């Protein structure tokens, strides 16, 4: 059970984060906005919580270079608003952005949304980062330019670290131009039919930005296109023709809100859990058919899906996904559920432990996150 930590520290500068790490003995949890509080392993008891939501704001935005550096506690939603004023964006649309997820938290959880199909995840968008280690070392890697192969890419190590190596304090991001026009085309049908549509779509030259299937009666495939105001209609027509089957343009905002809600497991039964899975794209539709899922969002071209299942079925989900050559991690779950957060450990587990030992020898940060692996 998550217990109330005895102390919560709320630093507002990188130096205060460093001081907090150095001056606080014992084990530390790191929190941003709390949107992924229950993800991955159940946090073990800590002596203090480092709340980074006060370490917020843009440090430098260089519109001409399409880069921005921000404090890690900055909510991505707020950052997007600032960037939009310059016709730019961070090309990341994870479901929990709308709920205030922070840039640091999004990096730490390796979260991504539907547009990962084209833009990748945070790992592909972060070009530099500064992190505080357990001994107070501030480590900076990368820089402010999009192309850079000097030294090890330590920022990538933080991607998916769930806070176990220490708090990110500054993140430098690569930006993209905001599209001048965006639209969404939908076609209804079950997941296997959607998968056939996606196969033809990905073989076509239409360059979709996101391709997601949502469960329901009978289920729905959403395809996002971006482009110029004048050129988009012609591509929409080509897309509608390619999909056939009653495909049509729909209200994108509503459609993607519905997607985000399903991804977050909203409206699920109180004893349900949300699991994120990944596998080869063509394996996904048949795999989903074998899971006891009550709700699904499936990136049929990326191989990444989020499924809502009865919490008691989580071990079975891990096994089924692993048998299909995929990976899985637990996201939200009922407070009472004692289920494993991760599937079988990867072959690199000993290496992961060695890295943890070098960077955080006393295991001070985020204990429990990789339970049962380490």
């Amino acid at each position, binding site marked *: 059970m998550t217990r109330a930590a005895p102390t919560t520290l709320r630093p507002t500068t990188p130096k205060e984060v460093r001081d907090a790490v150095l001056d606080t003995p014992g084990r530390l949890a790191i929190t941003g906005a709390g949107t992924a509080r229950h993800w991955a392993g159940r946090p073990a008891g800590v002596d203090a919580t480092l709340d980074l939501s006060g370490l917020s704001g843009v440090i430098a935005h260089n519109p001409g270079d399409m880069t921005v550096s921000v404090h890690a506690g900055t909510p991505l939603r707020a950052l997007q608003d600032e960037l939009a004023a310059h016709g730019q964006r961070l090309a990341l649309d994870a479901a929990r952005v709308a709920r205030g997820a922070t840039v640091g938290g999004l990096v730490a959880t390796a979260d991504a949304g539907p547009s990962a199909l084209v833009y990748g995840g945070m790992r*592909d968008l972060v070009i530099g980062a500064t992190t505080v*280690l357990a001994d107070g070392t501030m480590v900076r890697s990368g820089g402010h330019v999009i192309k850079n192969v000097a030294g090890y890419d330590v920022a*990538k190590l933080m991607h*998916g670290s769930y806070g176990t190596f220490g708090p990110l304090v500054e993140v430098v991001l690569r930006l993209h131009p905001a599209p001048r026009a965006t639209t969404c085309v939908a076609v209804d049908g079950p997941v296997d039919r959607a998968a056939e549509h996606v196969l033809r779509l990905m073989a076509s030259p239409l360059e979709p930005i996101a391709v997601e299937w949502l469960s329901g009666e009978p289920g729905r495939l959403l395809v996002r296109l971006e482009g110029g105001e004048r050129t988009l209609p012609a591509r929409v027509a080509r897309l509608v023709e390619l999909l056939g089957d009653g495909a049509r343009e729909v209200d994108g905002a509503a459609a993607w809100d519905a997607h985000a809600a399903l991804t977050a497991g909203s409206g699920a039964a109180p004893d349900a859990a949300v699991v994120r899975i990944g596998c080869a794209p063509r394996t996904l539709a048949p795999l989903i058919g074998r899971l006891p899922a009550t709700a699904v969002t499936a990136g049929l071209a990326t191989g990444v899906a989020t499924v809502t299942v009865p919490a008691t079925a989580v071990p079975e989900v891990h096994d089924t996904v692993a048998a299909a050559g995929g990976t899985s991690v637990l996201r939200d779950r009922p407070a009472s559920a004692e289920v494993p957060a991760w599937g079988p450990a990867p072959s690199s587990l000993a290496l992961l432990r060695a890295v943890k030992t070098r960077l955080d020898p006393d295991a001070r940060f985020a204990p429990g996150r990789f339970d049962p692996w380490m």
Partner: protein
Amino acid sequence: MPLDAPIRAEFVALLGDQDVIDDPVRTRTYECDGLTGNRVVPELVLLPRTADDVAGCVRICARHRIPFVARGAGTGLSGGALPVADGVVIGLNRLNRVLEVDPENRRAVLEPGVTNLEITAAAAPHGLYFAPDPSSQQVCTIGGNVAENSGGAHCLKYGFTTNHVLSVEVVLPDGSLVTLGSDSAEQQGPDLRGVFLGSEGTLGVVTKVTVRLLRTPEVMRTLLADFPSVAAGGQVVSDIVAAGIVPAAVEMMDALAIEAAEGATGAGYSLDTPAALVVELDGTVEECDEQFAQVKEICDRHGCTRLHVAGSPAERAKIWRGRKAAFAAVGRISPDYIVQDGVVPRTRLAEVLERIEQMGSEAGLRVANVFHAGDGNLHPLVLFSAAAGETERAEELSSAIAELCVEMGGSLSGEHGIGTDKACSMPKMFGEEDLAVMDRLRSAFDPDRICNPGKLLPTPRLCGEKPGHYRPHPLEEAGLIERL
């Protein structure tokens, strides 16, 4: 301590006699990579044929603490594959099979010795291609690309090797075989694959790579545009990006580079222009047409003196042939040259090019520029004559240019890596703490420091020596004296 006979026998027992090379004439073939100024003849060269063989070789090295260096095609330009004296080179060229092309999942599984161009050749029948395209793509290997996180002209839009590798199977320095990354974009725990990508052979040996393939775009539009100044060309790049257009490639060449490339290839470049841009757009017909019109308009606005649009695939290939041959072609206008590789924020291109010109004239040396303008990745070519005794001055100028890039808020390297070449410049870009953490990370992979030691991170020995490239003394070459 030289490798003694019993150790050699262990390698022979594993690989067979013909795949363990110790004949000094043959080991000499491996004495350097593309950075030919630095040479070290390895004690042994091992040529395994399978991943298990590679693991076996590394296990023997681990047991005896023998340093080893992985080698692909040896085209690296930063001395990453420079052998270690008293160590072995593990050549990966015999692991060169395309194991699988899976069009439905848009990926390919490769052994490390497959060349970059072979990947696209294997994917092309399915309408797919591998996006990262270093100019050396005909010969460089995917293992080398992974180690260097290589880029190419099309990386502005499509990203670098790290953005296209789903997983790598690697032999760690203790001889264990692990997979980093997975079959999907979803990631489990910290991105160790991302750390390995670009680690320059210092964290392990790649034995298998799974890459993403992209669909060949519907159309590609390429134009060549001349400008009255390098600054005007730079402004065009900024304006294209500001207009929300992400070209597939934007390359710039200055007068000296154009002269060399045109002389070598007859690609149709203008010999009387101070700067030329190659701009390529790709995508759907609709988007490309609209953006192409915008790009032309931006070029005109900045005083474009000639705009040539490739009218056919053959013409497009010709434009690219000139650009891709530019490095080698510089050999035609100068007896010797050094290729530098640094990055600056795109908005500082004009300023940095001006500074480079100034520094060149102060040093009394010519500098040719041909580079990936869209990502701010410069390749200043410092021209000199070794015979005229200009080597040292050229090396100093080249290092000063790399460090200038850092001063401008950029990076020491955009694609060629740090290797042995720029390890001593790393403290210009990173603080002591940053470097110490990188060293801790390295030691998690390689506690005994046997995996490509002396590369990437500065070591006191390396940096204590006189800056500049090591060149053997004639007496050393004659085998009469030796540096210890």
